[in-house]
């Protein structure tokens, strides 16, 4: 048998060993109309070849061993990949497969997912500043602003009350008389307004 014929024969044996045989072996057609041999014919041809050729049997055994070695190596390599990488890969794949959400709430959720770190940082900082503002808020009245923070007014005993003071009194077109009355209930300031026409009439 010539060299090219041996190469074709070895190729056919490899395809047989891998279960991929779909053509002629050793130039023997399998009786199909399109020149292809059927599976039973191919098996018979290969079996006959292996029975009479010890080299072919060795080659088939070697090819099967190499196939087992390659398969085992790939399986071990797959086991060595970290689970987290697989999880990330699947997540990316799922993200690409999922339909993009279009609702307002979905967009808001996506925004918060994207900026979660910044939102937390901002909220914590704001809380700290607000707490400081509450703590540092002046709790005593500011002497520059009389009456500030004077939440409750003390109603002092009548005997301790000061006489009312008129700071200003304007009676446009008339006149006024101020009368201070004191009794057991305290002071009463009476501001008597007299219209101008009444004044003129007196």
């Amino acid at each position, binding site marked *: 048998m010539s060299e090219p014929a041996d190469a074709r024969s070895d190729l056919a044996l490899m395809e047989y060993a891998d279960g991929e045989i779909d053509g002629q072996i050793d130039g023997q057609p399998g009786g199909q109309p399109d020149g292809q041999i059927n599976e039973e014919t191919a098996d018979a041809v290969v079996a006959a070849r292996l029975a009479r050729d010890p080299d072919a049997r060795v080659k088939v055994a070697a090819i099967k061993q190499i196939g087992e070695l390659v398969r085992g190596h790939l399986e071990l390599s797959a086991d060595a990949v970290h689970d987290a990488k697989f999880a990330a890969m699947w997540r990316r794949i799922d993200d690409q497969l999922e339909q993009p959400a279009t609702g307002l709430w979905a967009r808001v959720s996506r925004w918060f997912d994207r*900026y979660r770190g*910044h*939102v937390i*940082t*901002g*909220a914590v*900082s*704001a*809380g700290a*500043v*607000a707490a400081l*503002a*509450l703590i540092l*808020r002046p709790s005593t009245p500011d002497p520059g602003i*009389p*009456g*500030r*923070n*004077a*939440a*409750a*007014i*003390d*109603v*002092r005993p*009548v005997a301790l*009350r*000061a006489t*009312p*003071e*008129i*700071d*200003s*009194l*304007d*009676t*446009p*077109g*008339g006149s*006024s008389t101020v*009368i201070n*009355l004191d*009794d057991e*209930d*305290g*002071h*009463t*300031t*009476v*501001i*008597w*307004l*007299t*219209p101008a026409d*009444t004044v003129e009439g007196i």
Partner: protein
Amino acid sequence: MTSRRWVTVAILMMVVVPALAGTMKEARADVTTDCEFLEISAKAGGKPAIDAELSPVEKKLKKPPFSTWNQFKLLSRSQKSLVKKKAEPVSLKIGAATATLVEIVDKSKVRLTVTMDDEKGKQVANNTTTVEAGDYVIYVHGLANNDGHLLSLTCK
């Protein structure tokens, strides 16, 4: 500054500004006083009569200078919480009035500005008085036929 930092700053401002504003508002809201306004009509008649609702000032009304009249009728009554520097309208049956808390002095006195307009809308008084909490200020405005129009106020 990157857009992400702007996001952080924006969130910070959204929380801090209302918090500070609330604090300042609370501080301002502290400066208040509660005042009661009694609008009274006074007449001279045959039979003395004082409305029961006027009991807080009844004893005062029986003494001079109010003894010119002997019939007193409550026209309106208002409770107002005055906020510092904010003019509060006081609704009256005759004319109109406003009251403004200028400040609280020594924790026991209020400095008030009161304006009164007559029924024609003409201002008849613009007065600022410092008065102890619990004491009274009574404005008396003469009307036709020697009737009187009184506005009594007291704050706590």
